């Protein structure tokens, strides 16, 4: 049982019309402070499901509770203070001529005192590592940096939950790692993270829990280790499993555990097996 649920999804269905569903009977409880990865192939319904978490989409049937509030009755702009949603394309929201103004835009609607606005903006700039770019024009930044501006502009509202839709697509390895490390440290500070991705090696490095969606249904849900050990089921979704986990799976015939995530772990397990043989 999850002790401190922040998002509860109950029998959620989302239909295009009577015969075609995008999501079918989703049941999911997400606890406060979790680091959850939502994975699945293109078109599996990940974005559609995530858009229910902050009320952008309302269920066709079933319900979604955020902090015990039914999303059906709350405006998206109000839920934004509980659930922040960072879109794939940062350019859909950038329109100010400095990073600072861009980030503090959402705070205008909260009628906060000036010091508080400044403090929150500073915190957000620090959290995404853009303090030096405070007065830069957002369009002079790289794609990865703009993605971080978008993240910061959601962070200033201090939402408990952060939903990140494919935060690393279009970024090179270094930029991906930067943003992932930021997300990890936000999780350590207490934010609940829901990350949509199909990069399984990111998942095995950063996430703690994985929910696998396939054709609008939940296929697997559990800790990273456990989900990665169900490789036959995962192969249905065409997700690319990290090579080291695949190796561990193959080597399970000689007695090493299936649920290993790192090279180090596999190495130890191999040493143990060899030690036992001698």
């Amino acid at each position: 049982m999850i002790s401190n649920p922040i998002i509860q999804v109950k029998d959620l269905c989302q239909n295009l019309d009577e015969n075609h569903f995008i999501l079918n009977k989703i049941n999911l409880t997400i606890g406060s402070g979790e680091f959850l990865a939502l994975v699945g192939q293109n078109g599996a319904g990940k974005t559609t499901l995530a858009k229910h978490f902050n009320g952008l989409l309302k269920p066709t049937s079933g319900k979604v509770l955020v902090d015990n509030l039914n999303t059906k009755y709350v405006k998206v702009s109000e839920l934004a203070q509980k659930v922040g949603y960072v879109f794939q394309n940062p350019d859909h929201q950038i329109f100010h001529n400095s990073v600072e103004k861009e980030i503090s835009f959402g705070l205008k609607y909260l009628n906060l005192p000036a010091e508080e606005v400044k403090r929150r903006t500073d915190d957000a700039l620090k959290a995404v590592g853009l303090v030096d770019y405070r007065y830069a024009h957002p369009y002079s930044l790289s794609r990865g940096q703009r993605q971080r501006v978008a993240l910061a502009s959601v962070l200033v509202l201090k939402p408990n939950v952060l939903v990140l839709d494919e935060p690393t697509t279009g970024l090179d390895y270094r930029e991906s790692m930067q943003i992932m490390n930021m997300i990890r440290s936000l999780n350590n500070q207490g934010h609940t993270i829901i990350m949509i991705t199909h990069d399984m090696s990111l998942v095995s490095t950063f996430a703690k829990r994985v929910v696998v969606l396939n054709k609008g249904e939940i296929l697997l849900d559990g800790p990273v280790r456990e989900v990665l050990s169900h490789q036959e089921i995962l192969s249905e979704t065409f997700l690319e499993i990290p090579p080291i986990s695949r190796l561990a799976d193959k080597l399970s015939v000689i007695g090493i555990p299936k649920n290993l995530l790192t090279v180090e772990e596999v190495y130890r397990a191999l040493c143990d097996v060899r030690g036992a043989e001698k």
Partner: protein
Amino acid sequence: MTVANEYIPGNSPIHSMTPLAKIIWTSVVMILALLFNHPLYLLALFFSVLLVAKIAGVLKVLISTLKSLFLFSLILILLQVLFTKEGEVIFYITEYLPVTKNAVYLGTAMGLRMMAAVLSFLIFLLTTRFKDIIQTLTNNLKLPIDYVFIFMTALRFIPTFLNEIKQVKEAQSCRGCSLDGWNPLVKIKAYAAVALPLVLVSLQKADKLAMAMETRGCGSGPRTCYREQKMSAADLSLVFISILLAVFAVLARLNGYGTYQY
């Protein structure tokens, strides 16, 4: 208002006609709509267009557009009622606001005229491939490709922009910008938050499109086509009937038919 103007694949007789035949048909519908001002004649024209939509199998897609056009027509009638005072009075809304037969007829005629013209053009767009339209306009009608391309690209991007607007709205409301309220003042203030990113994203898109076209050799020399469009017997007969209808209509109009004396 949702606008359906994207090609919908199908194999109806309307789909298989050449674009030129359909362009002529659309033009004739427009000529007829402008020629007559008798509501009954225009009603007949409107139904003939609906019939074509039914044959093409695009009636369902057009329903939402039809609804919006209908609403617009009602507004036209209402405006006529407000401003036309001549003619036989049907009934009074208040003592100073009589509803005259003229007003209702004139409003209805204007509404039907608009609906017939808009629908026929939409049917043409819904049943004709983008590249076929371009080919017809440049090869058969000898229009300069640059201008044809500007016009067609603008049309082609309407659904893309509607989608873009939706995404920008979603992104802005996710950072606490309230667009989904009912307060019109708040909505006007939030306008910039939608309009500016939209312009920026559109400029990026236009830039990319231009580059993609250039890298494919657009503008480097005379254009040739892989598939030549040939008029079939069905096409020729449609063109013939359309033109005959137009000529007949002009003659009828000159002899005083199809007009309503206001």
